[in-house]
């Protein structure tokens, strides 16, 4: 199946010479949730802004549903809903009229049943006649999502949907996203919360310094790049690691456990050997546990690698 969004060699250079995007290639499949991770100023918002028509590209091309965003901008944009990062709402308007305005703006015939459905799904129906300024922060964000969904887009961009919101609201936003994904909407979200990407995304892209460093299935990414730590708790704690084990890279942790870090993707993890050496050293096990490294570790590793590479070059 052709990707719903195809980004080819996209660059963006601002008038002051700052290069926000340096040749990004990216295909997004219909129905997936893609999380774009990256530090502040990495180019996430610039990428989204160009696809949605808010910023002009410098070079490269983007198609949405097969339509070029410049040549066939109407058809491309009809497919897209955008929830920007900044809280931007018409504070004096009523909830329902602002949502209807959005639908009209995207050229869709007014459909009261559809608007009601959207507002109900976002638990905004009770507030439909309230002025937006009377709503809480969480509700305002929901209004922005309702506006973005008003014209029934096939792709939804959520730019930092949970930045600066409390834990409860974040969980709420996740529920909203899950429901949207279920309905078949493709979701692209930017975030710098690794937890969010891990919880929500089918695929993760890491952007740093205007480049897409990698894009991978969330699970595969975790597996292929993830390291695991085997924590060995002993019946009687030791003060130093037996030489045979130390040779294999086992270290003594501050909590007194013996830690063995291994690569899950390696052909031989070496766990059996470690356990055999333990036995040979006459140590008795009290408990064993393993811990998977998180996306955060991977992410920090990647961005640091890029920086080190640059410094070396």
């Amino acid at each position: 199946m052709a990707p719903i969004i195809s980004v080819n060699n996209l660059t963006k250079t601002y008038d002051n010479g700052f290069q926000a995007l340096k040749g990004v290639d990216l295909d997004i499949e219909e129905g997936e949730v893609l999380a774009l991770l990256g530090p502040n100023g990495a180019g996430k918002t610039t990428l989204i802004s160009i696809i949605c028509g808010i910023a002009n590209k410098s070079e490269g091309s983007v198609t949405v549903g097969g339509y070029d965003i410049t040549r066939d901008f109407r058809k491309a944009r009809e497919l897209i809903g955008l929830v920007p990062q900044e809280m931007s709402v018409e504070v004096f308007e009523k909830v329902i009229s602002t949502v209807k305005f959005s639908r009209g703006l995207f050229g869709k015939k007014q459909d009261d049943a559809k608007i009601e459905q959207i507002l109900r799904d976002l638990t905004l129906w009770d507030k439909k006649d309230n002025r937006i300024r009377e709503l809480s922060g969480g509700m305002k964000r929901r209004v922005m999502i309702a506006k973005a969904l008003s014209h029934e887009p096939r792709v939804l961009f959520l730019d930092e949907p949970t930045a600066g919101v409390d834990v409860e609201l974040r969980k709420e936003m996740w529920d909203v996203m899950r429901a949207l994904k279920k309905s078949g909407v493709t979701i692209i979200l930017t975030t710098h919360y690794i937890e969010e990407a891990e919880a929500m995304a089918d695929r993760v892209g890491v952007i740093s310094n205007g480049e897409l460093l990698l894009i991978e299935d969330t699970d595969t990414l975790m597996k292929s790049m993830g390291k695991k730590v085997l924590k060995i708790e002993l019946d009687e704690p030791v003060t130093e690691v037996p030489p045979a084990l130390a040779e294999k890279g086992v270290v003594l942790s501050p909590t007194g456990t013996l830690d063995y870090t291994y690569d899950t993707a390696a052909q031989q993890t070496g766990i059996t050997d470690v356990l055999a050496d333990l036995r040979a050293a006459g140590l008795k096990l009290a408990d064993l546990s393993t811990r998977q490294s998180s996306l955060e570790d991977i992410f920090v590793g990647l961005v640091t690698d890029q920086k080190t590479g640059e410094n070396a070059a």
Partner: protein
Amino acid sequence: MNFRAIAAIYKFEMARTFRSIFQSVISPVVSTSLYFVVFGAAIGSRIETVEGIQYGAFIVPGLMMLQMLMQSVTNAALGIYFPKFVGTVYEVLSAPISVPEILLGYVGAAATKAMMIGLIILGTAGLFVDLQIAHPVAMIAFMLLTCISFSLFGFIIGIWAGNFEQLNLIPMLVITPLVFLGGAFYSISMLPEAWQTIALFNPVVYLVSGFRWAFFSMSDVAVGYSLLAIAAFLAFCIATITWIFRTGWKLRV
């Protein structure tokens, strides 16, 4: 053409007007009445007639022009500046909508409001003086052209403005003096000769003069020149806006 989008913007802007209809209407009516009291009654009693027209009636086209210019510029400027200010402009920029459609929505609404105010002032003036309109069709046409071209101008101001002070700067510092010096309250022929020549560089002279012709069949400059001037201004505004959207100046980075 995305007619639904044009209608959505137009209705949204008109709703904004009607939400504050009282302020929208009351202030031009009050200020116009004040002008009538000051210029019409107090000063007018000493001037009596200008080129055979009662002074009170003579100033009506100028007063309408003053208010319509102010209303066009401020409404259109605020119409686009406010979404820019609160950030909601992202929606318009990301919508499947072209520049002419955006303009029809915003400028159409601002021009409509200015037209309404113009007609209300005409009605108010009718309470103070006897008015005869020689060329009603031409009067409406002048009003329309003026409201549309100055709403376009206001739209440009709204895009240009970086803060609320700048937003008010042009109406206060440019429009008001131009109208006052543009013969709203006197005939250019009443000025010393040197000033008459200088006045001809004031675009508002042509507007007021042409508009006055529609009322009284008399004008400072030939009505053809008035039409030419307003057409030129319209073309200038359209060209500027086309450039703005092509380069994305202050809107699309």
